[in-house]
């Protein structure tokens, strides 16, 4: 049988293929708590929390193309808001999440304001400044935050049903909460990016001047996207607080920002599945390298892997998987419909609806758009 298999988009086979993937995903998510030990499930939850933050970062830095070196700060604001509200002031976890996200949104919009005037490296450094400021501020405000010695005792009580009873049940509960948060974050990003804002964002990224001439409201789009991106990172922070139960300034340091960025780019920038894949790699590779070697050597291996992946998989893991998948199954579009593989991971093709916004010179084609329909 010759590969790739060709499936016509919209045909029964294509619908089956999509349905099959969706079912497989749901089965995987539901079965996971039964299939792995509590300890391993906790790690998976940790990776999923990281994934939520990366989804938020990807909205800003992947789709908008604004490099943020400060997303750990938003993660930290969300985490400490949840921590302080639940432990010190005895509020519920869900209201704390909401307040934390709102604070992140506001701070995100404020940080996004200079982004209107600043480009590239300068913006990156403003966000870097915010990212480095937060841990110092947490240490300084030790009366509220516990300072360097940390904040303890956050937890998210599961509802009183047998399924979530006991220590293992608690882990399953947090796991499901995180899955729901991740799905919601993805839906928000997905909807934003496939709507008017998404087109405006892509147009701004590719040719700002032309986009503004076309009537894109840069101030509104940039600041709101910044705010939403920050709020999603804040949600991840809140989850982190209740999942780990311990918060220290070091947990939200520049190292976290670096991890988030690496996860985003490794996973596949501006793609849908990329952030999740990248987050799992970033979470589990250090676990794996420190399993097989001593501490400093594992750092060397991790760094070398980061460099190697940039060269081997320039489109990120999502791009690489897509390319691999296309060798096995190719979905041939029926003229009015779009290729499903492309659709799930690429905005440029989406823009083809909108030739006016696409017109001015793109310099760096997205890897996913290489999936040109009908090419041999």
């Amino acid at each position, binding site marked *: 049988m010759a590969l790739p298999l060709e499936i016509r988009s919209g045909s029964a086979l294509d619908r089956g293929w999509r349905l099959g993937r969706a079912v497989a995903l749901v089965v995987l998510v539901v079965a996971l708590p039964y299939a792995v030990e509590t300890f391993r499930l906790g790690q998976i939850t940790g990776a999923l929390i990281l994934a939520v933050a990366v989804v938020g970062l990807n909205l800003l830095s992947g789709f908008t193309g604004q*490099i943020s070196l400060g997303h750990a700060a938003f993660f930290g604001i969300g985490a400490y808001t949840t921590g302080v509200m639940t432990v010190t002031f005895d509020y519920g976890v869900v209201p704390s999440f909401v307040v934390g996200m709102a604070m992140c949104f506001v701070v995100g919009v404020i940080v996004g304001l*200079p982004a209107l*005037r*600043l*480009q*590239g*490296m*300068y913006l*990156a*450094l*403003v966000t*870097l*400044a*915010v990212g*480095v*400021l937060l841990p*110092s*501020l947490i*240490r*300084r405000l030790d009366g509220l935050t516990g300072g360097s010695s940390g904040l303890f005792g956050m937890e998210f009580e599961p509802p009183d049903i047998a399924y979530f009873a006991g220590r293992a049940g608690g882990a399953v509960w947090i796991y499901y909460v995180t899955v729901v948060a991740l799905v919601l974050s993805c839906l928000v990003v997905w909807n934003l990016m496939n709507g008017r804002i998404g087109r405006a964002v892509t147009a701004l990224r590719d040719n700002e*001047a*032309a986009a503004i001439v076309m009537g894109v409201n840069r101030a509104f789009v940039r600041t709101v996207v910044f705010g939403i991106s920050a709020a999603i990172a804040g949600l991840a922070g809140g989850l982190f607080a209740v999942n780990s139960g311990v918060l220290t300034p070091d947990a939200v340091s*520049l190292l976290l920002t*670096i991890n988030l*960025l*690496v996860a985003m*780019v*490794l996973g596949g*920038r501006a793609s849908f599945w990329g952030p999740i894949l990248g987050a799992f790699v970033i979470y589990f590779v250090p676990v794996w390298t420190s399993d097989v070697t001593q*501490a*400093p*050597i*594992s*750092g*060397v291996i*991790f*760094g*070398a*892997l*980061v*460099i190697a992946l*940039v*060269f081997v998989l*320039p489109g990120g893991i999502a791009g690489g998987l897509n390319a691999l998948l296309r060798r096995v199954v190719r979905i041939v579009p029926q003229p009015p419909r779009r290729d499903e593989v492309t659709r799930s991971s690429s905005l440029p093709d989406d823009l083809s609806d909108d030739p006016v916004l696409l017109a001015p010179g793109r*310099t*760096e084609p997205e890897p996913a758009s290489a999936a040109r329909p009908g090419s041999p």
Partner: protein
Amino acid sequence: MDLLIARIVDGLNNGVIYGFLALALVCVYRGTKHLNLAQGEMAMFSAFIAYALYAVGLPVPVAVLGTVLVGFLAGGLVERVLIRPLGHHADYSILLVTIGLFLVLNAGAGVIWGGDPLPFPALVPSSPEDYIAFFGTRLRYQPLLVLGVLIVVMTALFVLFKYTRLGLAMRATASNPESARLLGIRVNRINSLGWMLAAGVGALVGALIAPSTTLTTGMMFNFLIYAAAAATLGGFDSPGGAVLAGILLGIAENIIGSYVWFVGTDLKQAVALVILLAVLMIRPTGMFGTKKVERV
């Protein structure tokens, strides 16, 4: 008054280091418009190399010059092998590679030389009794040496940029790479040279400050952030501006840290970042940077 002078002198200690490392960042940025996040770790690694050279019996000044040479060559190698193949528009890939390099060098130094601080001898007398009295404060030789070398390096770079054919080629490339190519300038080599100079300058600062900060894998981490702030304030295309901004930042953080109670020692270094934010809100290209006019 004397106390104020003492604060200024103290601030100079860090300020000189910020300025020096900012100079290295600018050397890379001018050509390729990339921020090398591994610049500090390259300097740290170089300091360890100086230590290794000293440990095999070379005199300290020779060890310092040796690591500068190694750094110079390694900078070129990094540019050639890890940066240039990615192309000059791959901002994210290059950012990621510098992060990877950061991790490799940081952990690698730990693997080779262990996690404990190593002693590195100073080039100048630095026991508690060695100082020059100055308006009731103590000017120590070590920071004076760093400042002196910084001035020498700055002057050398100024002469290179302003009065040599190579410098003219470098400035032309920094301002308009495409035009520079059409004048027959080998732009790739110029960018390579930028990385080499940066790594050489970084190696020098690493080896010079190792005696006062002690030699550890984390010695450069904070400095890099403030150097980046200094480079930004100075305007990323202006070497003199970056150095001056670095020195001013060091002094400002020390004075504000001493006189504003809320800041104290915890937030002292954060002052630099608040200044950065404030300046960028007012002047998006830094204090000394040139404004780029974008024609549409």
